[in-house]
């Protein structure tokens, strides 16, 4: 870290970094897909940045995602996280502070002064990258622009009690299935799989009146992978509408429709059965029907990040649609913090955030260190 010097704030000695001065004009909050991509895009423009991540590792939630290719790439984008980490590690100008939390922000001219504190938490799960450094002490960061890339949170399936998550054995979320498949196979002797879509999405009763966009593709690819790993397994796909992901997807979807059972109905209940979870759903004749599965997988939707209200207040932002973050003067939003986005879409939105941040640095005349001292 360059250009730092101690100063006294409120009686205690704090370290201050003048990001705005030379080396790190943009502060990126969140070290997931969007945060990393934003840092890379800024670097490609020749602008330095500092990534602040509250967890112990960079890469975010998508780092635990599994590859959904059979032999042919499924275009899920999960490996793009690896690409980003690799590219980031090859760009020495990038810096990242892990286990660091932004707790306060103050406008300084056109830029910001952001206070970071160390965040207690679990140890890193994978070996640290060259650019990752844990934050040791409280830090004040002066920066010309801020990019919020704090991601999303996944809907808590317990809130939809009728689907049995957390109390019926054999009911899991798609995220949990993802982790299981990443380790190489289906849990136990699962042969009969049911996927339930729109859990926490498209739901007026929950106040989630939006489509989470990614779940159809995500769940169907997982289902296909599960069938590939366990060739005898049968998949039932409970859904309302299958969303569209482009030309190649349509061809794949036709194949998936042929190989899986698509039922256009959302189950009313999942409860324990004799040999596994029992789904109660409307049959094609309009009659309630029960069927036992080995595994019921809930495609949980994307929700605004937990930190959204706090960050909105810190940076004086107006809450956006559905509670996701929106930007403001010198504050840009990247990735799924701004709304449900796929990995690829998050990366593209990071490019836009980086471009806007760069424009802000020029037009907003970020404060010079002298001004900050005064």
């Amino acid at each position: 870290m360059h250009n730092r010097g101690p100063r006294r704030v409120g009686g205690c000695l704090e370290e201050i970094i003048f990001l705005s001065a030379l080396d790190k004009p943009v502060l990126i909050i969140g070290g997931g897909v969007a945060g990393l991509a934003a840092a890379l895009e800024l670097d490609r423009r020749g602008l330095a940045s500092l990534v602040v991540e509250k967890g112990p590792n960079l890469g975010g939630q998508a780092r635990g995602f599994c590859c959904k290719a059979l032999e042919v790439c499924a275009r899920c984008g999960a490996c793009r996280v690896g690409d980003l980490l690799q590219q980031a590690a090859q760009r020495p100008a990038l810096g990242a502070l892990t286990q660091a939390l932004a707790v306060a922000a103050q406008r300084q001219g056109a830029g910001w002064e952001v206070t970071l504190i160390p965040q207690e938490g679990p140890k890193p799960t994978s070996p640290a990258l060259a650019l990752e450094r844990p934050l040791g002490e409280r830090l004040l960061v002066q920066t010309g622009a801020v990019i919020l890339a704090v991601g999303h949170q996944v809907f808590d399936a317990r809130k939809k009690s009728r689907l049995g998550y957390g109390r019926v054995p054999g009911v899991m979320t798609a995220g949990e299935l993802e982790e299981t498949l990443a380790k190489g196979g289906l849990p136990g002797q699962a042969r009969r799989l049911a996927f339930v879509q729109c859990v926490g999405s498209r739901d007026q009763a929950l106040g989630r009146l939006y489509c989470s966009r990614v779940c159809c593709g995500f769940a169907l690819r997982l289902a296909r992978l599960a069938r590939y790993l366990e060739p005898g397994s049968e998949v039932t796909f409970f859904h309302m509408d299958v969303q569209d992901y482009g030309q190649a997807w349509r061809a794949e979807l036709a194949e998936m429709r042929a190989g899986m059972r698509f039922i256009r109905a959302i189950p009313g209940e999942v409860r324990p059965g004799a040999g596994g979870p029992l789904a109660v759903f409307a049959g094609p004749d309009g009659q309630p029907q029960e069927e036992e599965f080995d595994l019921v997988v809930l495609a949980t939707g994307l929700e605004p990040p937990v930190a959204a209200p706090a960050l909105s207040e810190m940076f004086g932002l107006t809450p956006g649609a559905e509670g996701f973050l929106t930007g403001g003067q010198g504050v840009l939003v990247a990735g799924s913090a701004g709304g449900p986005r796929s990995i690829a879409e998050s990366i593209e939105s990071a490019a836009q955030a980086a471009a806007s941040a760069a424009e802000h640095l020029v037009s907003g005349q970020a404060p010079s260190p002298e001004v900050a001292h005064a």
Partner: protein
Amino acid sequence: MEALLFLGCTVPVRNLNYELSARKVAAHLGVELKDMAELGCCGYPLKAFDQETALLLAARALAQAGSTGLTVVPLCSSCAGTLNEAAHHLDHDPETRARVQDKLRPLGLEYRPGVRVRHLARYLLEEVGLKAIAQKITRPLNEFTFAPHYGCHLLKPSRVMVGFDDPEAPTSLARLIEVTGAQALDYRYLKECCGGGVLGADEDLAGRMAGRKLMELTQAAVTAMVVICPFCNVMFEGQQKTIAKKLGSEIKVPVVYLTQILGLAMGLSPDELGFRLNRVKPKELLAAFK
């Protein structure tokens, strides 16, 4: 502790054992259940035909009861549901409230928002508390297993019954049963409706709805089914023989009220709790209290 007892139409005429045991248990727990002569029908019976009038009748009851400032405690789930929904509606919709007030005014009544309605079971669980009940248990019912029947209107609609039990995985009755030391049975048709709501429209259908629960419980080793609503009682106890005949199967499921077994566990005698009036006698249970 004081509360206002809401008897409704059926309980004081047809379910005296329920009323008796409820009053006894409440008194035993130090709850004074006050009576109010003016309280009549809650409005539920008219809802399907003319809900505006049904709402007026509920509002009348709420206005009457509200003047006491006490929590209204119905014994019947339908009354509890109707009054809760009406109060919710009136409290959240000023337009309806104004319209209703206009109709109540000539009767010298006024609905004041915020009337608290709690079914007796919910009242026992939330206001009296399991701890207080447990302290009064002198004769634990350890050797018995009861099948709770929640019915519909104790728990639903959950947007009205805010903060109470989860209708998808209810535990409230089970907890009230288990506080006596008895086992609460979890069974397949636990959450299903008794069918009472369609008895008037399709007796056969109503019978099959109640019948599938009764048949399941006939197979299970259960001391009795525990109910908290006179309408559910009609289906399970009153109609039990008819249903058995119609379905052509052996059905024998004793039906008791929650307050009856709470009373037994508190040391009250079967006679005091009106067991004489139970039509399908819980013989196993009563034998232990001879």
